[in-house]
């Protein structure tokens, strides 16, 4: 079970993590993109953090929706619409809920990942955030389906996302600005997959705090 208070804690922790990793994400983006991923995400999550007090007594759907609106209106670039859509879709399936069961948490992640696919017109294997998110979703779902608790399942998801980030080093980008590099994009890890991994890692850390 995850309640709304825990969700707020996770989001606040993600905002701090993104701020802390801002320069690293930007450096990754410098190598194969236009060098602003960390800067843009940090700007967005800073505004999310400022918004959080106003979401304090809201249901989880409303919290995710509030996060989405802040990201969409402050991040810009591709990551704003992508993460914004992810939180929006997760919010839709959590509407009115003050807590999520493990199954509902999986459904929220599924909706988020499908939202990113839809908005980005992308699939796995194109060197994008989906290379972290898709394997993570599959691992979390497999874990819950075979009876693991949420923390163990999320731990599997984080491992799968980390492997996905490693995998992005080996493939050519076909979506986003890194696609202009063609073969020269090989050898570099994708900044979007990396920020997705950071978010999942942070969620796990917060859930483990109890």
């Amino acid at each position, binding site marked *: 079970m995850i309640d709304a208070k825990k969700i707020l804690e996770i989001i606040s922790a993600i905002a701090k993590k993104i701020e802390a990793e801002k320069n690293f994400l*930007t450096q990754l983006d*410098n190598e194969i*993109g*236009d*060098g*602003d991923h960390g*800067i*843009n995400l940090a*700007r967005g999550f800073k505004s999310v953090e400022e918004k959080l007090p106003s979401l304090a007594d809201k249901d989880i759907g409303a919290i995710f929706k509030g996060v989405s609106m802040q990201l*969409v*209106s*402050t*991040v*810009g*670039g*591709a*990551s*704003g*619409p*992508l993460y914004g859509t992810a939180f929006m879709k997760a919010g839709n399936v959590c509407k009115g809920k003050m807590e999520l069961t493990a199954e509902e948490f999986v459904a929220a992640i599924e909706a988020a990942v499908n939202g990113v696919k839809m*908005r*980005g017109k992308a699939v796995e294997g194109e060197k994008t955030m989906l290379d972290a998110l898709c394997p993570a979703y599959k691992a979390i779902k497999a874990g819950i389906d075979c009876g693991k608790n949420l923390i163990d399942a999320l731990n599997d998801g984080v491992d799968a996302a980390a492997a996905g980030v490693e995998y992005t080093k080996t493939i050519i980008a*076909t*979506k*986003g*600005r890194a*696609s*202009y*590099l*063609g073969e*020269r994009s090989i050898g570099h890890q994708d900044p979007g997959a990396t920020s997705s991994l950071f978010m999942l890692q942070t969620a796990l850390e917060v859930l483990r705090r109890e």
Partner: protein
Amino acid sequence: MKKLINSVETVEEQMILGLVKSAPKKLRKLECGNVVVRAEKKENKVALVSGGGSGHEPSHGGFIGKGMLDCAVAGAVFTSPTPDKIFEGIQAVATEAGVLCIVKNYTGDVMNFEMAIDNAVDNELKIDYVVVNDDVAVKDSLYTTGRRGVAGTVLVHKIAGAKAEEGASLAEVKAVAEKVIANVRTMGMAISPCTVPAAGKPGFELPEDEMEIGIGIHGEPGTHRAKIASADEVAKTLLDKILADIDYKNQEVVVLVNGMGATPLMELYIINNFVQDYLAAAGVKVYDTMVGNYMTSIEMAGFSLTLLRLDDELKKLYDAPADTPALKR
């Protein structure tokens, strides 16, 4: 980082305010953000909305005015503006005749504009959009993001803007914008990088004796690096790639020799000197030439070459009057 700015946080807004103050009778900034519109809204014509990241000045705000754009939405440096700001711009200039958005082909720009356009449709506005993808340096493919929108976008603004000013319908303005996109090709290069203010250091490094061929307008790497060559040799490399992409032989063209921000006009003219002779020898007829900074990349040194293949309609619209801060005709 050495820049004439006040703080990295205020770069975009102060730039936009300064632009508007340079032409206060013609331009107006919306309260909601870095959105610039014509000082006087023109009714009874299709409104043209463009935009993108900042750092490409005079694109796009400098092309607002009679015969060109009605609105330009500026994002953070090299970052697409957000859907809410684009929507504010659309709403401010929308007319009964409709709105055409001109979007450069980048993943972020396309997504943010699409979200804004969805919102406009929900609000029962008549709206459509075109995506400019003139950069021949990038391989075109259905399965990738595809070619980038670069300096050719300015010619889309000019010609679609002239068509809209004539009172053409949304479908007609869109059709002529698509015609420009189908006939315009660009390729660029750089000899030194640029620094995004918020990043504080250059987006890439180039050794003293090297250049990047096929570069984008955000410092994204191009097709390859090479030892620096003469102006003529570099211009030939870019032109050959453009001429191989569509057939320009015996056609009339507009040539745009575009500076990336830190290239002196002296060098752009040296390049143009070669370009004109080379095109003449290749049997391409130059109808008109533009030399200057139209689609820049902050302080990157380098240039791009653009060729637009003309027909009678495009020629007439290219010659039509325009009165904007950065382009008058």
